[in-house]
């Protein structure tokens, strides 16, 4: 099977800034792939390289096995859902959705029928006659999705598609997007800075930092087995333990990470422990978040909210399984 998108040491520099720095990447056909990273990490530039809005300064990009270097965006079988939707304000919703078919010369009746079907797919059947200004943010988002999907692209690119939506809508759209991707079998490439979004939707996640992919793999691997301090901190905010603290726990002198939810108050069997002073304790709904001062490090722990706990300022010992201590590759 050919890969949907392949990058071979692709670089894109803007002056002295290495937006994308020798990235290798392979996205399988039919996969939901997420590019996760903070702003300025190069994930959006990667997306724009796939779309064809940017050309690489070095390396080779291929889409469905064919070299895409020098191919303009309008000749790529790739469509984008833009961050702020980029709907055409001078057209109706139906004409917006039918645009891709119109420029390809599909006749009016056929393209309007296809556009109406695409609108039904995103649950906006019957909205075709409206103007973009008459829709809410969530509806515009769906129109942008329908406008891209109507062209039956090989790869659908989504640039922070849920960024402008409120929390409830965002969660609903996450499930919907994932369902849509499974049903249509189209390769989705999602760019996001929201680790929850990437982990919940994608089959595979690539974490970007400073123009490079620092780790890629299944969401579970990224979350449970971060390879570097950056990934551990960025994805789910792990505790980062210094080499000396790790050594005192496991005897191994290296950087390690520890998830906040790995801790229990119950000592259990063969578990490691950390003792410190409770600096802060905040109720978060399902969990209570504890900040524990251990020597000169602050450790965060998420404990079940119902558990009785000593007061702030007093001492507490927390326990965790030895395998929860995740070794990092950073030089000690």
């Amino acid at each position, binding site marked *: 099977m050919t890969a949907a998108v392949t990058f071979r040491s692709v670089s894109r520099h803007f002056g002295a800034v290495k937006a994308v720095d020798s990235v290798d990447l392979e996205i399988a056909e039919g996969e939901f792939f997420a590019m996760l990273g903070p702003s300025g990490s190069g994930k959006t530039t990667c997306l724009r390289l796939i779309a064809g809005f940017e050309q690489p300064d070095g390396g080779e990009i291929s889409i469905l096995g064919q070299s895409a270097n020098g191919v303009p*965006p309008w000749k790529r079988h*790739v469509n984008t859902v833009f961050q702020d939707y*980029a709907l055409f304000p001078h057209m109706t919703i139906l004409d917006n959705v039918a*645009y891709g078919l119109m420029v390809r010369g599909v006749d009016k009746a056929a393209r309007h029928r296809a556009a109406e079907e695409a609108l039904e797919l995103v649950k906006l059947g019957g909205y075709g006659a409206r103007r973009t200004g008459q829709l809410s943010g969530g509806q515009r988002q769906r129109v942008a999705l329908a406008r891209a999907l109507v062209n039956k692209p090989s790869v659908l690119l989504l640039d922070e598609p849920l960024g402008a939506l409120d929390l409830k809508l965002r969660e609903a759209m996450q499930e919907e997007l994932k369902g849509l991707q499974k049903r249509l079998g189209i390769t989705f490439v999602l760019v996001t800075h929201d680790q929850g979004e990437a982990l919940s939707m994608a089959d595979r996640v690539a974490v970007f930092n400073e123009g490079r992919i620092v780790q890629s793999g299944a969401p579970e691997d990224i979350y449970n087995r971060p390879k570097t301090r950056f990934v551990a901190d960025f994805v789910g905010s792990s505790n980062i333990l210094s080499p000396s603290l790790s050594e005192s726990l496991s005897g191994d002198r290296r950087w390690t990470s520890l998830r906040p939810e790995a801790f229990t108050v119950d000592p259990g069997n063969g578990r490691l422990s950390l003792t410190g002073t409770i600096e802060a304790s905040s109720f978060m709904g399902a969990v209570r978040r504890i900040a524990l001062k251990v020597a000169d490090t602050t450790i965060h722990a998420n404990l079940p909210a119902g558990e009785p706990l000593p007061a702030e300022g007093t001492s507490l010992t927390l326990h965790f399984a030895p395998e929860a201590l995740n070794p990092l590759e950073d030089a000690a």
Partner: protein
Amino acid sequence: MTASVSPTNSAPDSLASRLSAALWRSPRLLLLLLLAPPLLWLGVVYVGSLAALLAQSFFSFDDFTAQVTYELTLSTYAELLSPANFDIIKRTVTMAALVTIASAILAFPIAYYAARYAKGRWKAFFYLGVMLPLWSSYLVKIYAWKMILSKEGIISWAADGLHLGWLLDAWLSLPVVGGNSLSVSATGTFLVFVYIWLPYMILPIQASLERVPSNLIEASYDLGGGPGKTFRHVLLPLAMPGVAAGSIFTFSLTLGDYIIPGIIGTSRLFIGQAVYTQQGTAGNIPLAAAFSVVPVVIMAFYLWGAKKQGAFDAL
């Protein structure tokens, strides 16, 4: 802190401060005071003189006594529609339309470059380049063009040098657009009009293009629309208000101008020149007034159409 905070400013109540406080409390009074002078100016001097002009056009002129007859009549308008006078109107409107179309075609790429690509220093250079001609004297520019377009001018010289003199001569031998040299042909008038009014077309188009988000262009590319289709279906419709706004300037300025066709071009009159000669040497104020009503009426229809295009949103 030892000083207690007083609820009001403790500065002494001078007359000025009491006045400003009173005006702050009644913003309508302030607005009225500010607007009274310009409203008087606009209402009396500007609209009033226009009304007087309109009234004049309903009087008639007695050719024998060379006096204006102060009786309401439509005979002056009948005279306006006589073949000789109607030709002047047709000539002027055609010229204004051609100048507008040519300006739009020339201005679009310049405005597009300025809106999409020019940054920092180049943007300043663009504004300077477009505005600078507006700051120098109109007459100086026209006389400069007379030299450029004359038989001994740089255009003839360049055409000869490129062995294209025959092409220029062939063009000048054509009826209507031709003449003895470019400076005494309708083509010359057209060229100078386009040169003089071009900035008024560039600036509104540039303003409207600035407002087209660049991701709409990318969205069109992404959906398979190449540059040509993107221009036709996205860029041009969104820039149309700017083109319409610019055309208001080029069209109306050409309709009313009487200096350019007087200096460069044939002896055939334009509306502005007709007004000038009728009210000056002939003393035929009613006909001059009727002539000047023509651009007003044409522009009223033009603005009505432009408003429907959304041109005023781009000003």
